[in-house]
């Protein structure tokens, strides 16, 4: 992959805390203009990796290249980082906090004021400009926090669990806002536990566990690599065919259909043929891609 297309390249990064390796020999690329899902269970090393990308800590070994440069402080101004643990000054006016965060990203005051007004309006918080954090609801604080990460118009947006604490309406709203960013050819790295959301938003994913890479690539590649070994079946009779353990590893009963997990190396076409031979009346036979959730549970669950 040519470097120009790569916003972020992590090369064999390792970070240790004493004996414990939080991240070990981790390598991946994040391409420009993509939404990159950074997934993993709690304690997998996501936050440590993100902190290295943002320049809060440095890797013990390996390198991190951002925008084609190796990690220097001034690149911080091109990153917008929304940490998982949110924080605002409790007793400070919203506008003052946003001004401060903008100043720390080197945004000139007049420009910052313009953008603050724009974003507060966009988020429906214009009336709260002079209020203090303690007067705001959790969801509102979340939105203010989001504004603080985009005020300097960053090229790379890193969002750690951006939807936690938001109601469904606001989740949809935030997804729309993020979609706008995507069309602007900005790169978004987005870390979450919510696989459905990740599946919906991300074009690329990386799943890590215990500090190491599990799978990664475009969503399509990952799913294809995982194979289409699940079949949604709605049929009458012919159940004998499903008893063959050389073909079927598991049958999960749902209300109106069954989920068939094929055995390793089994062919879906063979199963279909056997079902018809067994006299089954088939109204639905569909090869289903594994959901990200399935992949996550299998990979991580298996590892545990």
């Amino acid at each position, binding site marked *: 992959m040519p470097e120009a297309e790569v916003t972020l390249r992590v090369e064999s990064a390792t970070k240790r805390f*004493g004996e414990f390796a939080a991240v070990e020999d981790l390598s991946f690329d994040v391409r420009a203009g993509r939404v990159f899902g950074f997934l993993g269970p709690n304690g997998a090393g996501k936050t440590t990796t993100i*902190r290295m990308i*943002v*320049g*809060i800590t440095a890797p013990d070994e390996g390198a991190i290249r951002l925008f084609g440069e190796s990690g220097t*402080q001034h690149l*911080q*101004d091109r*990153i917008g*980082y929304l*940490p998982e*643990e*949110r*924080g*605002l*000054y*409790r007793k*400070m006016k919203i506008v*003052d906090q946003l001004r*401060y*965060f903008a*100043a*720390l*990203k*080197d945004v000139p005051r007049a420009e910052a004021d313009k953008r603050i007004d724009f974003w507060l309006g966009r988020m429906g918080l214009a009336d709260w400009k002079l209020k203090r954090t303690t007067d705001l609801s959790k969801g509102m604080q979340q939105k203010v926090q989001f504004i*603080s990460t985009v005020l300097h118009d960053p090229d790379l947006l890193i969002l750690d669990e951006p939807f936690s604490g938001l109601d469904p309406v606001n989740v949809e709203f935030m997804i729309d806002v993020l979609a706008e960013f995507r069309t602007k050819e900005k790169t978004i790295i987005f870390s979450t536990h919510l696989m459905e959301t990740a599946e919906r938003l991300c074009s690329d994913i990386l799943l890590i566990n215990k500090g190491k890479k599990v799978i990664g690539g475009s969503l399509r590649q990952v799913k294809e690599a995982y194979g289409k070994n699940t079949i949604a079946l709605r049929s009458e009779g012919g159940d004998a065919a499903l008893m063959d353990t050389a073909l079927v590893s598991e049958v999960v009963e749902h209300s109106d259909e069954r989920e068939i997990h094929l055995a390793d190396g089994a062919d879906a076409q063979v199963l279909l043929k056997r079902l018809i031979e067994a006299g089954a009346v088939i109204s639905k036979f569909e090869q289903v891609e594994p959901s990200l959730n399935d992949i996550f549970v299998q990979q991580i669950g298996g590892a545990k």
Partner: protein
Amino acid sequence: MRKFLAVVRHEYRKVVMKWTFLLGTLLFPVLGLGFAVIPAFIFSLKGEPTRMVVVDRSGKIAPRLMANLSAESVQARMREAAQPAMKDISSTQDERMRRGAKQMSSSVLFVEYAAGGKSREQIRAELNLMAADNDIDAYLIVPDNAADPDARYEFLSRKAGDFVVSDMVKDALNEAVHSERLAEANIDETQLKAISQEVDLDTKSITQRGEEKDSESLFIASLVIGMMIYITLTIYGQVIMGAVVEEKETRIAEILFSSAKPMELMFGKLVGVGLAGLTQLGIWVISLTAIVGFLSVQSGTAEMLSGIPRVSPLMVVYFLLFFLVGYFIYASIFALIGASVTTPQEGGQLAFPAIMLLLVGFYFSFVVIRDPNSSMSFWVSIAPFFAPITMPVRILAETPPFWQILLALGLNLMAICGLVWLAARVYRVGMLMYGKRATIPEILRWVRQA
């Protein structure tokens, strides 16, 4: 640099824009002014005149007493009482109160009463009746043997609690009896006064350069300087700690660290809060000067002003330098504590040793005031942690040789470098460590890690 200035500005505004800052800044001078002005004001209020009967069948005491209680002599005594009150802060509360009372003018109105031929009991009964009818407030019965040492005077008052009046009467009576005794013994009163005049022991200290200094006012001024530095360091050290803990507790640190260098953030915080401290100190110094000025005008003694040790501009520069040095020493200690705890409560507990260190420094300033040239004073005034309080006190008490000031500054600057370095490392790691308070071995690990 721009980010550093943004941090400085932010921290400064955060302290100064708080109403507690405004309150603290204003309250201190207002309290000071209150202590200076209110007593003077209250004492200047004139109570209602006390209507008094003096029964003196000997006729020897009453005229003298009346003269002593005349408006002019009361005023003269007031002025006399006012003078030492300003200088002496070591007197007890009670003494000060009595002296204050003497400054209070209260007038006595003498009521005529014909006592001729009545018995003592009869007089008392009649006067008690008059008092009960609210015709008189008090009466004094002078015994016939007025000048004898064992003479018994009786003073009865409806306002027994009014120690102002009873003290005044007692003083005037004493004086009157005294004069009468002298007259009977044929001794000239003015001559005796001149002979028995108290020695005026004017305590001054001689500096090594042979200058004279007024040690009483020096003591007060040194104490004030020491106290002001101690108080400001304690307050602003804790402001720093609070600000650090808040950013850690609310997880703002994570955002800050993703925007600016930890060193910029910590140093910006120290400088911003320090400037706020200087603002407050500046307001205090100006208002203190104003109060002292007001007081000296109020008591009408220009002499007071000359009693205040002369502070040269160079001394002001020294005070400022040592205040800043002290501020950075203690602020970095408090920042370090703030970064290693998780809640303000924990911070309060851990801050105790640092506050003790400050307090010890403050106590050492007494050693310095008593003997600025002892070797003990030398050591405590150059020692890191103590010098920011003790050296300004010593400079005021008796300016030490320049090399000692320089040595103190140098040693303390070295301490600052070490502490800031240490605090910055703990800050870097500690600010992102949540969960529980760090132990000392953990903190040491952070220092090595950072």
